[in-house]
């Protein structure tokens, strides 16, 4: 089925074989986000090489995706890629290249003008409005500017992500302290975000992203507003989360970070993917 996505036609929409789509939908569509009370499973082995995972259903798939903003900006053109479960992916590129647009397409903040995106079994072309919150509960989103609610304590900020799922008070208490301990902020639960440093605030953001045990963590320049030392710590944390099985997609400008961590790198320039050192069979 790899050939379907490898034909390299220039038509924006590459109609996929129906059977392939059905397989994707069949295996993921019914998957509800779960909130296990138990800590995450023991560290999984290092991300499996792309060659091995190529036969599995990818967690994320872009097929001939185009994004043109209302003002006429061509932000992304003919993007084709696959990201498998358990991968750690850096997305790099110059300012204005289209990295944030790529992220917004994943979170369904923006819709593509052409092409198909499948995320965790949800097809973005046909996702129902009421399924969008469900999609977002399968991902933990980390923002450059942290996005904490200033009137809520650290605990409440993290708990909030679980409240929207209707989790019980008991499991909230358990999971939130677990997540805060992972990011090393167990003792700051009662503080307000304004009482924390930038790095600490971002770690709260990270705790919030992982508290629902999501399939993937999506981070758009999570280290953009913290000092270099803290940047390393945050990427270390993301690596740790990734080792436990969560897929991580991180946009960054810090080339040194990318070099030091040696993971898959997707490079975007002027809206097209110009380099990808591990695209699960869909590289062009």
């Amino acid at each position, binding site marked *: 089925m790899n050939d379907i996505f490898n034909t390299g036609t220039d038509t924006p929409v590459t109609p996929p074989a129906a059977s392939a789509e059905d397989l994707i939908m069949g295996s993921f569509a019914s998957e509800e986000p779960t909130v296990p009370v138990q800590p995450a499973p023991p560290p999984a082995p290092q991300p499996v090489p792309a060659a091995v995972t190529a036969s599995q259903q990818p967690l994320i798939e872009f097929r001939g995706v185009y994004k043109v903003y209302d003002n006429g900006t061509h932000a992304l053109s003919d993007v084709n890629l696959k990201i498998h479960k358990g991968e750690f992916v850096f997305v790099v590129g110059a300012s204005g290249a289209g990295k944030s647009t790529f992220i917004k397409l994943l979170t369904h903040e923006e819709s593509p003008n052409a092409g198909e995106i499948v995320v965790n079994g949800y097809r973005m072309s046909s996702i129902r409005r009421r399924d969008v*919150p469900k999609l977002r*509960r399968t991902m933990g989103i980390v*923002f450059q500017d942290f996005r904490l609610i200033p009137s809520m304590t650290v605990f409440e900020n993290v708990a909030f992500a679980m409240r*929207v799922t209707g989790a019980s008070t008991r499991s909230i208490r358990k999971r939130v302290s677990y997540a805060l301990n992972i990011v090393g902020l167990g003792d700051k639960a009662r503080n307000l975000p304004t009482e924390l440093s930038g790095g600490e605030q971002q770690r709260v953001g990270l705790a919030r992203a992982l508290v629902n045990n999501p399939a993937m963590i999506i981070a758009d320049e999570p280290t953009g507003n913290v000092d270099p030392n803290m940047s390393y710590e945050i990427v270390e944390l993301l690596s740790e989360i990734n080792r436990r099985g969560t897929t991580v997609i991180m946009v960054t400008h810090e080339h040194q970070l990318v070099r030091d961590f040696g993971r898959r790198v997707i490079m975007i320039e002027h809206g097209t993917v110009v380099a990808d050192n591990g695209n699960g069979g869909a590289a062009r």
Partner: protein
Amino acid sequence: MKLSSIRYLIGEGFKNVWVHRFMSLASVGVLLACMVMMGVAILLSVNVDTALGSLQDQNAIVVFYSDEMTDEQAQIVTTTIADMDNVKDAVFISKAEGLERQKEVLGSDYAALLDYLEDDNPLPNAAQVTFEDLEQFDSTVLAIEKVQGVTHINEQRDIAAKLNSIRSMINNAGFWIVALLFVISVAIVANTIRITMFSRKREINIMKAVGATDSFIRVPFMIEGMLLGIISGAISTGLLYFIYKASTASIEKSFGMTVVPFSDFAIKMLLGFMLMGAVTGVIASLISMSKYLRHEGSEFNAIT
């Protein structure tokens, strides 16, 4: 929605009233102003309506009987009239009573004059008749005219009709004033909430990012609006009580007119205003939220 969620969201609604207390104060202020105006309109129209109603009750017609009838016969005819459709009451007034009434009207100076007439009373026997429903005034009068022994009727048809139309005019005006003030208060409260909504946009976007459904985002705002409305409803009833007490005291003193006691409608008004406040608050918060729940692209990032 799960029970734990509902409990949490209601708690958030209560909390928001306090967290955004300046907005709460502003909304309550606006609602209070509107509700007090509404209340004044309602109180006025209730009192005018009652006053006109009692005027109508006094607006009896007088039926005069033939002189050939004895007092006993006239009394029997009066009971016949009293039993007729649409007749509320028929009170027999004998010749003698009629003369007494005239004396009262004329006062002591002329009363002596009338004393000469006592032996040869020129007044006929009569009855004072009141109606149930003034809409059927004409047909009832016609029916009474046909009763044996009735010579003529002293009617004030046009006054009855005028009173009727004034009453319905006042009721109409009251209704439209209340409806208009309701629309105005919804609009102003929606706007007040919208102003703070702008500062809460960030919060709403974070909610969306972590996968909150629209209703999850909406419920605390609705609870908040409802609470503000209920509070305003209760306070405005209290304010109206004092306004009413103060103004009616002076009216009663200077005009010797009795007004409807506040207790007659206190409960109705309290419940009505609290309900109306709740509805206003919910509608206003839904209106002011709709813009932020609509998906307009870049929803997490369109915040700065």
